[in-house]
């Protein structure tokens, strides 16, 4: 593999007190190439947020993790919290959900941007604050706003400031978790444009997590669709859009709200399965519009269906088999 970041067979499960364990991520593998924008799509409750939090080891104490996350070939999670900490923000930084209270309300924005610099040896004191101002300029906020507090910013400005903060230590990878949720449409577009621009200008690899497939389609060159803690389909954006091989991907595109309204045209009935119990067969079967009898018993594996294009669907499997037979 030629990935900058390679995720291999990642599992995350939570053991809440007085309840069955929740297996939120079930054997996810993908790679992120240098300078690439990669999308991670799915409904809420499909494990995508847990997946990227796991990449940085940002899990709660009741979580367990298996598998590898390799940065330049080094498994950064091997030693638990202590082994990931040096990589956080220095190599992998994160932009949290717009709706989140991700900025500390009682600290000045500039201070918050400058804070990690000293710890990762990027800059200190005055220099760090100056750099914070420059970063704010870079994301389109006047440098003097560094003196202000988060509550004095609008939602869009807060999100820009979060992005500036993520760039503080010149990371190579930026994880963006629903960065445009809770922002209005115009601001959403601006933030996405900003992310695209920064990624191109700074050679930044981006993982964009969203439930919004068109957002990924606009921004990313490759994407993975997650369902029930697994990858349902992964491949180049073009292939996913024009030739989806998993019914979930197809239905997600169909469920896309049209451009001029936020009404969902046709959403997929039902909701993702609970992950605190063992699933047999295909997890998507109850909501699938083309289920087969076999789907109830056989768990589909990710199989190659095109160039760099994999899908976990028995129908895709059949076609792959047929293709093989024909050959």
């Amino acid at each position, binding site marked *: 593999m030629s990935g900058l970041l390679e995720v291999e067979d990642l599992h995350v499960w939570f053991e809440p007190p007085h309840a069955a364990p929740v297996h939120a991520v079930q054997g996810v593998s993908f790679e992120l190439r240098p300078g690439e924008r990669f999308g991670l799509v799915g409904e809420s409750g499909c494990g995508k947020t847990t997946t990227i939090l796991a990449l*940085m080891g*940002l899990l709660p104490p009741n979580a367990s993790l298996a598998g590898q996350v390799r940065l330049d070939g080094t498994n950064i999670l091997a030693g638990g919290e202590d082994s990931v*900490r*040096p*990589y*956080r*923000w*220095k190599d992998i*930084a*994160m932009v*949290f959900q717009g709706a*989140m*209270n*991700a*900025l*500390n*309300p*009682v*600290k000045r924005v500039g201070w918050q941007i400058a*804070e*990690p610099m000293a*710890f*990762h040896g990027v800059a200190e004191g005055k220099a760090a604050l100056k750099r914070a101002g420059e970063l704010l300029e870079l994301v389109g906020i006047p440098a003097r706003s560094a003196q202000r*507090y988060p*509550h004095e910013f609008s939602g869009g400005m807060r999100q820009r400031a979060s992005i500036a903060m993520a760039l503080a230590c010149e990371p190579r990878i930026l994880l963006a978790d629903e960065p445009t949720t809770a922002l209005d449409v115009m601001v959403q577009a601006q933030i996405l444009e900003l992310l695209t621009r920064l990624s191109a200008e700074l050679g930044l690899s981006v993982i964009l997590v969203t439930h919004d497939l068109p957002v990924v389609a606009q921004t990313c060159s490759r994407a993975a669709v997650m369902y029930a803690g697994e990858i349902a389909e992964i491949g180049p954006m073009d292939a996913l859009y024009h030739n989806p091989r998993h019914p979930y991907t197809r239905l997600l595109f169909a469920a896309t709200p049209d451009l001029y309204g936020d009404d969902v045209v046709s959403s997929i009935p039902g909701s993702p399965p609970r992950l605190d119990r063992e699933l047999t067969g295909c997890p998507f079967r109850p909501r699938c519009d083309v289920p087969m009898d076999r789907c109830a018993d056989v768990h589909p594996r990710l199989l190659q269906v095109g160039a760099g294009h994999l899908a976990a669907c028995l129908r895709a499997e059949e076609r792959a088999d047929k293709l093989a037979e024909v050959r």
Partner: protein
Amino acid sequence: MRRADYVIKRGFFALVTIFVAITLNFFLFRVLPGNAVTDLARVPHSGAALRRALTIEFGLNKPKWEQYVIYLKELAHGNMGVSFVYQQPVSQLLLGDLKNTIPMVTVGTVVSIIVGVFTGVLAAWRRGSIADHISTNAAVFAYAFPTQWLGLMLLILLANYLPSNGMTWPTAGLFGPEPFWQHLADIGQHMILPALTLVLTAYGSYTLVVRTSVLETLGEDYVLTARAKGLPMRRIVWRHAVRNALLPMVTMIAMDFGYIVGGALLIEVIFSWPGIGLAMYNAVTERDYPMLQGGFLILTVSVILLNFLADLIYFRLDPRITE
């Protein structure tokens, strides 16, 4: 400037509360049935001369509302009446007592806040650990034992090692005739037991308040951000979680001032500390109503002013106050 409005608003609230307290003071002692000041027959020291003096001074023969106006006027001039027992102005007596109360209560409160904050942060940070259990349970027990019991226990255990009474200063305050340092050392020695009792009685609730507020902030999103930044745990706790937890802490600590004053009152009684609390206790025993009234007013106004101070600190700590 809207931030200024906040200070004005809180200041206004403090003023109104003081006014309410002053009025309450009047009502409690003069208007309620079985009221005290007019019912001079119950007062052991009330001679005919005193009665006449009071009647004229406070207009006791006039209608209630006129009495109220006279009361307000006199108070504005610092006149709280004359002690039945000591035949001296109440304000003068209580001011002397206040000089003794303030150092003891200040030392006790400051130390208990420091102890409370440290044990509370420790308990929250190490939630579920042995340190958490020890500091939480110790705090619950310290809080649960009555103040006067803690004081008596300290007397039993430590009275042989530390002086509990017999200080060289009755009401002289810090600047008596003796050399300053010798005097200060004497006060300090005598202050240990009362102040320690106050710490024991007060710190527990601070520990619990601090623990809960810090735990609440540990669930905030910016703590996750701080973790994502790769900051060391110690820094996340102090700079992010505790800094934000300070806000509810200030409010809760301010709300406890009334409790501290009550505790201090009991402590002064136990250790014969010549402060306002002891004066009020004696006033109850001797039916010296003007003293009781004056003590109530001074303590209540002090607590209101301290609450206003807490409001100002809150204002300094929270940049979000705009409306």
